[in-house]
């Protein structure tokens, strides 16, 4: 996975406050359900611009997210089968409708945009910023230990690319030992799992040691979050764009 994880930079997307980025994600994730294809087109342009500003490779993104395609096939099939309209394809008693297919295409488009936004967020935000932002947002929520959750979320963000690299390395080692010759999926999973878990827990132990050596406590100096004029302009832009998209819808 070459595109999942923080990419150092000082672009306009990098400079946005993390809270605003999370807000952007949440708002677009929610309004994308209600907007039409015109709105999705506008949203696509905004997100493609963000992807190019952060300098993510579109080709690598396609490669990294190829399994999203499998999910989309199921979504397309579900929509095509569930929405009644004139048939454009029949397999035995299964009738795939035209309207369902179009509806499914819109849904998949929406899914792709939300995914891209998440990737842009990961690429442009340090895990410590994400942790601080999430802590700030969870603070008013009762019964949720925001510092613990923020810490865990920061670790997730930090470790996803590390684990995926481990998977790649383990996969290469297994291929070198002829795993491609074994088609049995059970065998493949049972062989991939133990080294992956062992290495992950080894890393966890090292991390715990490092945290203890640095006297880790929940009561520590937090990363300061501050807004600049750029963030306020971004917020106005978000409200304006959301309003416009919903109005068009």
């Amino acid at each position, binding site marked *: 996975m070459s595109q*999942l994880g923080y990419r150092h930079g000082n672009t306009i997307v990098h400079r946005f406050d993390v809270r605003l980025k*999370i807000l952007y*994600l*949440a708002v*677009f*994730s929610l309004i*994308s*359900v209600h907007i039409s294809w015109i709105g999705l087109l506008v949203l696509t342009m905004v997100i493609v611009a963000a992807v190019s500003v952060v300098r993510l490779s579109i080709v690598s993104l396609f490669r990294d*997210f190829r*399994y*999203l395609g*499998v*999910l*989309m096939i199921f*979504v397309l099939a*579900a*929509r095509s*089968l*569930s*929405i009644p309209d004139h048939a454009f394809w029949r397999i035995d008693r299964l009738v795939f409708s035209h309207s369902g297919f179009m509806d499914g295409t819109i849904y998949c488009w929406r*899914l792709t945009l*939300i*995914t891209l*936004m*998440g*990737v842009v*967020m*990961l690429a442009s935000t340090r895990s410590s910023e*994400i942790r601080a932002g*999430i802590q700030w947002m969870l603070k008013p929520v009762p019964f949720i230990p925001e510092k613990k*959750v923020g*810490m*865990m*979320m920061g*670790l*997730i*963000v930090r*470790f*996803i690319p590390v*684990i*995926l690299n481990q*998977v790649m390395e383990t996969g290469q080692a297994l291929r070198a030992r002829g795993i491609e010759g074994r088609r049995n*999926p*059970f065998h493949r*999973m*049972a062989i*991939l*799992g*133990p080294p*992956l*878990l*062992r290495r*992950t*827990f080894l*890393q*966890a132990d090292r*991390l*715990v040691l490092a*945290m*203890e050596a640095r006297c880790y406590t929940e009561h520590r100096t937090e990363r300061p979050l501050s807004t600049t004029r750029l963030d306020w302009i971004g917020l106005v832009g978000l409200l304006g764009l959301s309003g416009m998209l919903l109005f068009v819808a």
Partner: protein
Amino acid sequence: MSDTQQVKMMVYAALMAALTAAGAYIAVPIGPVPIVLQNMFVLLTGLLLGSRWGLAGVGVYLLAGAFGLPVFAGGTGGIGRFFGPTGGYLLGYLPAVYMVGIVSEKTNRNAFFEVSAMIGATLLVYLIGVPWLKIAANLSWAKAMGLGMYPFLLGDAIKIAAAFAIIKAVRPVLGGLNS
């Protein structure tokens, strides 16, 4: 539990959540259709960390997805996923991991009960996910089960078998995490 153990379990739970998220990108082919390993890691989280920390790990994983991080199947994320057709499966992970964890703890890691718990947990995910899919996508029961359950049962059976084999291989190395 001492502070050191608390920190240790917190890091373990976070890394299992990261592993679950990474499982959304790792696919093993069964014939022409690749299956992602996400739910296998959910089951392994329950078996390795127990009910409480397993629930914490999966809860934080779902929260990360709700905040928009690309951690769900295929690399998707966002709060909207919980209201979509697959939202039920995601929420089903919570009782599933708790069930596997509590059975593993209460039966002193008895192999028969652990496998039964994994089967029960998988069915529990469908028990929440399929009606949710039916309502969200406005499908008939037959279509909801045909699209949201039957095609994945073989993959689930393989994942349960693999999870059992993996847990047997790694437990002696990792020691008593949830004991």
